[in-house]
C-alpha cells in the first residue's frame, strides 16, 4: 500500500496503462512538459516521449476529433480537457462523432477514447472553471460516463476506462485532486467493474446518492448525522451511464428515504433521473419523496459566492431533515 493523492493516483493509473499497452496515448493542452495544469500527467512525456504524450494545439474540438482518428488507426487516446467549462467546443465531436460512429459502422469499428474532464467547483476559480456538465453527456447515447471520488477508485477506474472499448467521459473532482488515500499499486485485482456503484458507508435511516466531489461531502454529513442519532447510508454511484441500479434500489428499499446530491443545477440535473428511477422502482418502499440537493438554476457564481452555491454538509442535512418531515 502506498499513500497517493487523487491526482497522483490518476497519474500512476495512466502510467500503468501506458506500460501495459503501447497503443495508449495521452493528448491535450499542456499535458507534456508542464504535466497538465493540475499535474495529472506529470512526468509522462519525459518517460514515454512526445509521440505518446502529445501537447496539442489549443483547440478542444481538434483534440477529440484527432483522437477519434487515432482510435480508428488502433490507438487508445486519453484526452485531457483542461477545465469543465472548455469542453463545449469539443461537444460536437463528442456527441455527433465519438458517441455515434461505432453504431454508424454497425459495430465494425470501436472508439476506445477516454475524455478526462476535471469538474466541479470549490477551488476559488474564475468563470468557466467550476462547472458540472455531466448531464449533457449522460444524455448522449454511446458514451459511458463515470466519476471517481477518491484516490483508490481514481487509480483503478482510469485504467478500466482506458481498457474499455467504448468511449468514456471521465469526470475528475478537481477540488479533491489533493486528497490522499491508500492505494495498492502492486495489484491489478480490481474489486469491481468501473460501472459498479459502491456503498461507501452503511446506514439504515436514509440513503445519500452522490458521485465525484460530493461523495466526501455526503460522508461528512453522514458522520455529523450519526451524532444526532441518524444513520445515513452513502452510495458512491461511480458510473452515471450506465447506472448500477441494483445497488441503488436495494439501498433505497432498505432505508425508505433518498436524497440525491450533486453540484450541478438541480433543474434537469442528473438527480432528476435518479429521483425518477428510484420512485418508479421503489414507490411502495419510500417514506418520503426523493429529494435533491444541488446547484441553483443560475450560472456558476463568482468564487466569493461559491460556498453558498455548492451543496455542503448543512444543505445535505437540511434535505435529510425534510425527508424525515413527510
Amino acid at each position, binding site marked *: 500500500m502506498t499513500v497517493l493523492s487523487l491526482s497522483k493516483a490518476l497519474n500512476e493509473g495512466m502510467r500503468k496503462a501506458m506500460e501495459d499497452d503501447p497503443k495508449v496515448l495521452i493528448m491535450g493542452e499542456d499535458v507534456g512538459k508542464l504535466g497538465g495544469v493540475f499535474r495529472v500527467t506529470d512526468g509522462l512525456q519525459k518517460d514515454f516521449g512526445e509521440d505518446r504524450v502529445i501537447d496539442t494545439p489549443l483547440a478542444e474540438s481538434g483534440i477529440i476529433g484527432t483522437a477519434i482518428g487515432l482510435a480508428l*488507426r488502433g490507438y487508445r487516446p486519453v484526452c485531457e480537457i483542461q477545465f469543465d467549462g472548455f469542453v463545449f467546443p469539443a461537444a460536437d465531436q463528442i456527441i455527433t462523432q465519438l458517441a455515434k460512429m461505432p453504431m454508424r*459502422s454497425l459495430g465494425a469499428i470501436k472508439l476506445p477514447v477516454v475524455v478526462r474532464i476535471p469538474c466541479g467547483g470549490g477551488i476559488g476559480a474564475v468563470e468557466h472553471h467550476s462547472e458540472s456538465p455531466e448531464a449533457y453527456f449522460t444524455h448522449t447515447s454511446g458514451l459511458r460516463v463515470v466519476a471517481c471520488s477518491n484516490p483508490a477508485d481514481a487509480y483503478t477506474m482510469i485504467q478500466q476506462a482506458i481498457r474499455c472499448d467504448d468511449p468514456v467521459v471521465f469526470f475528475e473532482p478537481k477540488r479533491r485532486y489533493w486528497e490522499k488515500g491508500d492505494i495498492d499499486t502492486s495489484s491489478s485485482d480490481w474489486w469491481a467493474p468501473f460501472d459498479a456503484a459502491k456503498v461507501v458507508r452503511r446506514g439504515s435511516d436514509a440513503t445519500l446518492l452522490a458521485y465525484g466531489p460530493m461523495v466526501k461531502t455526503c460522508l461528512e454529513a453522514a458522520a455529523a448525522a450519526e451524532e444526532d442519532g441518524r444513520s445515513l447510508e452513502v452510495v458512491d454511484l461511480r458510473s452515471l451511464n450506465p447506472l448500477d441500479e441494483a445497488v441503488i434500489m436495494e439501498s433505497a428499499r432498505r432505508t425508505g428515504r433518498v436524497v440525491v446530491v450533486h453540484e450541478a443545477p438541480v433543474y434537469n440535473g442528473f438527480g432528476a433521473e435518479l429521483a425518477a428511477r428510484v420512485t418508479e422502482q421503489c414507490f411502495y418502499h419510500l417514506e418520503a419523496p426523493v429529494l435533491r440537493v444541488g446547484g441553483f438554476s443560475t450560472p456558476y457564481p463568482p468564487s466569493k459566492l461559491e460556498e453558498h452555491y455548492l451543496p455542503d454538509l448543512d444543505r445535505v442535512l437540511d434535505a435529510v431533515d425534510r425527508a424525515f418531515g413527510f
Partner: protein
Amino acid sequence: MTLDASRGAQQEAPPELVQLLTPEGERVEHPDYDVDLTPEEVRSLYRDLVLVRRIDLEAVALQRQGELGIWASLLGQEAAQIGSGRALTDSDMAFPTYREHGVAWCRDVDPVKLLGLFRGVNHGGWDPQEHNFHLYTIVIGSQTLHAVGYAMGIQRDDASAATIVYFGDGATSQGDVNESFIWASVFNAPIVFFCQNNQWAISEPLEKQTRIPLYRRASGFGFPGIRVDGNDVFACLAVTRKALEAARTGQGPTLIEAFTYRMGAHTTTDDPTRYRVASELEAWKLKDPIERVKAYLFKNELADQEFFDSVDEEAAQLGADLRRRCLALPDPQPLDIFEHVYREPHALIDQERAQFAGYLEGFEK
C-alpha cells in the same frame, strides 16, 4: 508591406488552374504535373466516370420514386472523385463527406451499400477498414479532424501510407476544417485535403464563404495549396498522386482545390432554380468531365464505337442491378435499434431492449 498595400495584394494574381485535358478533349502540358496513361488506363477512367454517373442517376430516380428518403448527387463532380480516388493506393485511407460515391467506387465499396443510409435502413453499411474508405459523415467538416488523427497514427506506425479527406467549399468555413489544417501543419501529418469546390453550399455561393481562392488558404497554415480543374480527370489524378506521394514521404499536407460545379441540386430535397441562374449551368455543361475524355479517346482513336456502346451497356446493367438490389434491401427489425450502441455490455441498453421486446410481444398474443 503596409497594411493598405497588403489589402490590395489580396486582389492580385488570378488563380492558376492545373489542367491537362481541355473541355474539348485536347491534351495540354503542365510544367509540374503530368500523367503517363496507357490507352487502356484512359478507357478505364472513362468507364469509371460513366458508371458512377449511372449509379448517381439511378439513385436520384430511386429517390424520386420514394425508394430513398434523400440522395446527394455527385453529378458534375465525377472527374474530381475518380481522378483523386484512382490516385490512392490500397494502403491509403480516404475520409469522405456524404457525396463521394465516385471515391467509394474506386475503393470497391458495393454501390448498394451506399444506399442504406439514404434508404433509412442503417447509418452506414460498410466496414471502413475493409475498404480503407471511412463512413459517410454528415456533420460538415467533422471528418477532416478524424483524417488528421488517422494520419498521425500512420506517422506513429511508421507506415508508408497517406490519408485523403474530402470536403466542400462550404465546409472550409467550419472550425473543424480550420483546426484540421492547423493540426496537420503542426504535426506535418501525411494528409491530402481534397476540397471539391462545386461553387455552391446548398444555396450559398462561394463568395459567402471566402474572399480569396480557397487553395490560397493553405499558405496561411504553412503548407502548399493548389487549384486543379476538377472536371479534368487527368489533372485530378496527377495532382492528387503527387500530393499523396509527398505525404507518404514525410513532406506533410497539401490542400487541393478541385474547381468544379454541382450540376444538380444539393440533395434531392433542394430546388436550385430558387437561387441560381440557368445560364451558369449551361456554361458548366460545356465543361462536362465525361465528354472531354470521350472526345480525347475519339480524336486519338484510342476507342471505337463498340467500346463506348459496351460501357453504356454495362452502365445500364449496373443501374438495373442497383435498383433491384436496393428494393431487396431488408428492412431493419425493431430491436436493431439497440444494436452496436456499445461494444461492451451496457445495463441500460439491455434493460430497454428487454422492456421493448416485452412490449412488442404483447401485440403478438
